[in-house]
């Protein structure tokens, strides 16, 4: 079962929920931190990362000896990433999506490809024996999606019973890439107008992908009841409510997980997993 923890608005507690869910989910769990721009789960789960893989996209490399400057590569490129100026074929790496179209159409077979490294994938095991993987995008790189795509494919030799993916905030293409292929999406929000607005954006994605979802309302009590009303109207089950408590915020700030700071939540998260399992089965 693949569970994605997503949110829309940033800072609502995705990593808080995802890590505590993982720590109470039993033996065969793999945690995958897919927030490659701001990967934080390792700060809470402290895995020892012993496997590493550089990933990115394949950029075209033009062999000037074979190139006849016909310009077909430039015609097929949707991203204006390759162009012919006089007797010179130029590649603009920052525009290239690595689709391979130019390489495929070149009549002279003058284009080969090289890996343009955009980030790294890392994998290991936490102190509690949980499998852990994360992607880390290099600073200055614009595209998170290729890293997320490779991270999802970097599977374990033996698939875990439960995979928990921690998603980035927002509702654009990186979030879609994380959610694709999931069995369930857990939406973490806060009861404020910002939380509600951004929750609706992610619900737009899960409705299009037709993936079952449930909501966690974090910091209950800080705002209003509009999120509850929306969830009822949109037929989204609210699976968990966590009150605003300063001691939770303080513990998480210092690098503790919620279930470490408040052990009474262990049973709450086990129930949450049972509820998710039931929703997926239905």
């Amino acid at each position: 079962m693949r569970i994605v923890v997503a949110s829309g608005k940033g800072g609502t507690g995705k990593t808080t929920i995802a890590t505590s869910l993982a720590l109470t989910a039993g033996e065969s769990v793999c945690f995958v931190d897919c927030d490659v721009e701001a990967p934080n789960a390792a700060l809470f789960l402290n895995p020892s990362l012993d496997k590493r893989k550089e990933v990115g996209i394949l950029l075209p490399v033009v062999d000037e000896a074979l190139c006849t400057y016909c310009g077909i590569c430039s015609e097929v490129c949707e991203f204006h990433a390759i162009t012919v100026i006089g007797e010179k074929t130029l590649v603009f790496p920052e525009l290239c999506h690595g689709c391979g179209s130019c390489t495929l159409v070149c009549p002279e077979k003058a284009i080969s490809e090289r890996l343009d490294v955009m980030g790294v994938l890392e994998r290991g095991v936490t102190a509690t024996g949980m499998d852990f993987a994360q992607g880390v995008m290099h600073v200055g790189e614009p595209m998170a999606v290729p890293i997320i795509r490779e991270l999802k494919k970097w599977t374990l030799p033996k698939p875990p019973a439960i995979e928990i993916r921690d998603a980035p905030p927002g509702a654009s293409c990186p979030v879609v890439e994380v959610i694709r292929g999931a069995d369930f999406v857990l939406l973490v929000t806060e009861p404020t107008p910002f939380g509600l607005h951004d929750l609706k954006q992610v619900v737009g994605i899960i409705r299009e992908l037709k993936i079952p979802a449930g909501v966690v309302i974090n910091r209950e009590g800080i705002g209003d009841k509009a999120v509850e009303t929306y969830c009822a109207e949109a037929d989204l089950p609210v699976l968990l409510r966590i009150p605003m408590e300063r001691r939770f915020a303080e513990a998480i700030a210092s690098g503790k997980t919620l279930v470490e700071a408040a052990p009474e939540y262990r049973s709450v998260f086990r129930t949450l997993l049972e509820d998710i399992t039931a929703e997926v089965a239905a």
Partner: protein
Amino acid sequence: MKQLVILSGKGGTGKTIVTAAFAHLAAQGQLTGKLILADADVDAANLELVLKPHLLEQQDFRGGKVAQIDQDSCSSCGDCEAVCRFDAINHVDDLYVIDPIACDGCAACVYQCPDESISMHEQVAGKFYFSESAHDYGPLYHANLFPGKDNSGKLVTLIRQRARRQALDENYELIIVDGPPGIGCPVISAVTGANLALIVAEPTVAGVHDMQRVLQTVRHFGVGAVVCINKADIYPAGADDIEAFCQESGIETVGRIPFDLTVSRAMVAGEAVTAFHPQAASSIAIAKIWEKTLPLLLESK
């Protein structure tokens, strides 16, 4: 004319709260009528929830194209699936179909299809808006990237170009850009060409980690930065770490904002916190940060 971009790395640290308060404070002082606002967080655009804008103009934002297979002429050879690097072509019941959400719009399949059955179709990926904010805070450029769409960087660039053009044409002195979280393409589009970045950091292990990554990103694009610390008293040791890190890196810390539930109440009321309750601890702190940041911005290159 100067451009200030508000960033954070980690989401939910308070970028929009600070932006809205700055808009309110600027309207009270010497910058009345001299400020333009831009919301560059296009897939989670929240500034409008506080600035209550009056819409003046809207237009469709055309994002990337998406491939479509004409099933009548398709011979189901599977060449398209073989060349697609985005896992966007599915083989279902002997038919090849495009997953429009996964499609990157590269058109590689179009050129490989022997039956010429695949064509590219432009799609509307979002809406661009130009508005007047309530309370005379100034013109607001904002947008709504439809759920799951790409090209957020392009939409941010459009917003910033339009804001800049109006600022130059009509002698505005300042643009404040409410940035997105993370460090990827929309952040790069939000920071490029800005005069100063204000990083809203959070004194949490995650917040410190992400602040360092966004500071590296800002430096990579040649923009100077200052840092303020939100919810600073939640974990004072973390706040001290941030200040120490900034001092070592030659980055000025312009203030600390205490954890204050007035901020959430102002959000529910749809007001800038400094307008909602000027004497709240958070409002006083943000006002001090504004007074410190403004001269640095005006001096910046």
